[in-house]
């Protein structure tokens, strides 16, 4: 069913009774060309692009819960391509371009809202770092603007310019950055994949891999075994525990990132604002809630919940830059389990087991990557060679000494 204003109008007149399910609820077949493990953003977009761009439609996405129950359903929805390193920046810029045409492409309004992202700088070295990054962005064909204090004041007069412990000295602004209605991304990709014949199998946990003579032949699931020519894992926060079933240890730890939403407020801030002298970033959802977050809790966990020190730290950061939010109430806090990699950058790669592929290590930044990750993973699965923007995202890069460490904090995931 194609969506349009006309369709909404026609349905309204007939009591909204003629809508069709966005996806079928199929039982898994015995065998597929590709089984994608994980029905999050990346799994669904991979399926979508496999079918749409590479003509591979004999595909199943196997999801242990409901579609979009993982990090795609709980992230702070920021999209941007303001990366520094050549192993990353072209990939994220590809992703941003895909976002820009996404809704027309999959006929679903995910409310891609490009109202800009503002990274505040509070000292000279930070500003120098942003300059280096802004230039890297421009050189990769992205957009970037370096703002001075006056420029920021004009854009966000309510920031604390006068009484701040760490005064605002400048900012890197990416006008094309912004937010997207996260759940709708999963639904749009899911619907698009389903329409092209992909089986989306919910409530079907993958419990093991069928590995025979070093070749992966399929998966064991809660709904029985499924054979597959290729098994493509993209389970984000569950990467460690899933790949352990294939006997693999990964350069990944699972950590919780909390996020927060305030009660609904009339328009308060445009776009995204990030604090540079503490852990706080914020945007406003289309429902009016201030959606904000900060640092990860910092300890290994698979529980989708965090603790108070980070809650306080994040709110302190918020009050430090925008003390007018003091009387806004925090409505809900939640957590998501993230696949924190050893250098803060992701993997889209084959494994040493033939037929088994891995996509993960997205840390707190994989939402923005959803389109490109799906596109590049589909490329790898269909052609068995990496997409040109994802050649560095290899599992063996630490062995070879080719880290992609944007933050420069080394092999300690909780610092990335």
């Amino acid at each position, binding site marked *: 069913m194609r969506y349009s204003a006309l369709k909404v109008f026609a349905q309204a007149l007939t009591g909204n009774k003629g809508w069709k399910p966005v996806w079928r609820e199929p039982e898994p077949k015995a065998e597929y060309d590709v089984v994608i493990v994980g029905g999050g953003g990346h799994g669904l977009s991979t399926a979508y692009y496999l079918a749409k761009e590479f003509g591979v439609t004999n595909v199943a996405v196997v999801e242990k819960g409901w579609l979009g129950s993982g990090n795609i359903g709980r992230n702070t929805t920021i999209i941007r391509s303001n990366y520094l390193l050549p192993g990353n920046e072209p990939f994220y810029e590809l992703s941003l371009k895909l976002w820009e045409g996404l809704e027309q492409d999959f006929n679903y309004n995910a409310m891609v809202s490009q109202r800009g992202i503002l990274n505040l700088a509070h000292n000279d070295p930070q500003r120098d770092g942003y300059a280096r990054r802004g230039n890297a962005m421009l050189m990769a064909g992205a957009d970037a603007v370096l703002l001075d204090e006056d420029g920021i004041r004009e854009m966000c007069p309510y920031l604390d310019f006068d009484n701040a412990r760490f005064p605002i000295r400048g900012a890197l602004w990416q006008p094309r950055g912004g937010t997207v209605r996260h759940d709708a991304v999963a639904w749009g990709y899911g619907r698009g994949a389903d329409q092209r014949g992909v089986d989306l199998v919910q409530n079907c946990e993958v419990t093991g891999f069928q590995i025979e003579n070093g070749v992966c032949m399929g998966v064991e699931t809660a709904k029985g075994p499924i054979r597959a020519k290729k098994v493509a894992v993209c389970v984000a926060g569950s990467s460690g525990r899933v790949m352990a079933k294939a006997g693999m240890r990964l350069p990944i730890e699972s950590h919780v990132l909390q996020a927060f939403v305030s009660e609904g407020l009339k328009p308060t801030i445009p776009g995204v604002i990030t604090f540079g002298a503490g852990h706080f970033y914020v945007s406003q959802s289309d429902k009016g809630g201030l959606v904000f977050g900060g640092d990860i809790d910092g300890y290994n966990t698979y529980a989708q919940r965090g*603790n108070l020190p980070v809650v306080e730290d994040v709110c302190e950061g918020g009050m430090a830059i925008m003390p007018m939010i003091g009387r806004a109430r925090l409505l809900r806090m939640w957590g998501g389990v993230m696949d924190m990699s050893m250098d803060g950058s992701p993997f889209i790669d084959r494994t040493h087991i033939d037929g088994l592929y891995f996509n993960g290590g997205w840390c707190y930044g994989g939402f923005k990557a959803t389109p490109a990750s799906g596109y590049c993973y589909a490329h790898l699965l269909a052609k068995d060679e990496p997409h040109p923007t994802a050649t560095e995202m290899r599992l063996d890069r630490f062995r070879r000494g080719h880290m992609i460490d944007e933050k420069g904090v080394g092999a300690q995931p909780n610092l990335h």
Partner: protein
Amino acid sequence: MIINHPLLGPRDASEFTYLGDASLIDRPDWQTDNAQELFHEYLYLRDNPAGEHRELWFHEQGDRSWLVVTRSTLTHEITKVELARDVAISRRRDE
């Protein structure tokens, strides 16, 4: 969270700084033939278990002890807390 410090009793986790898997105690021998590979595994690869996890916490705002905490990554329940130095010494003896 609360970490029941072996010397000081229950203390808020915010006094501590987290490092990671307690296997970081087992630093490889730099002179073995495949030292580079061993160091790669030591520094980069993780069991990352869903369940019991032995991990290193530093009591930075306390007695400056490194602790090995055994904690479930599913429930956060802590079942054991040891001084890392004791753990390190006993591992050496085991070798």
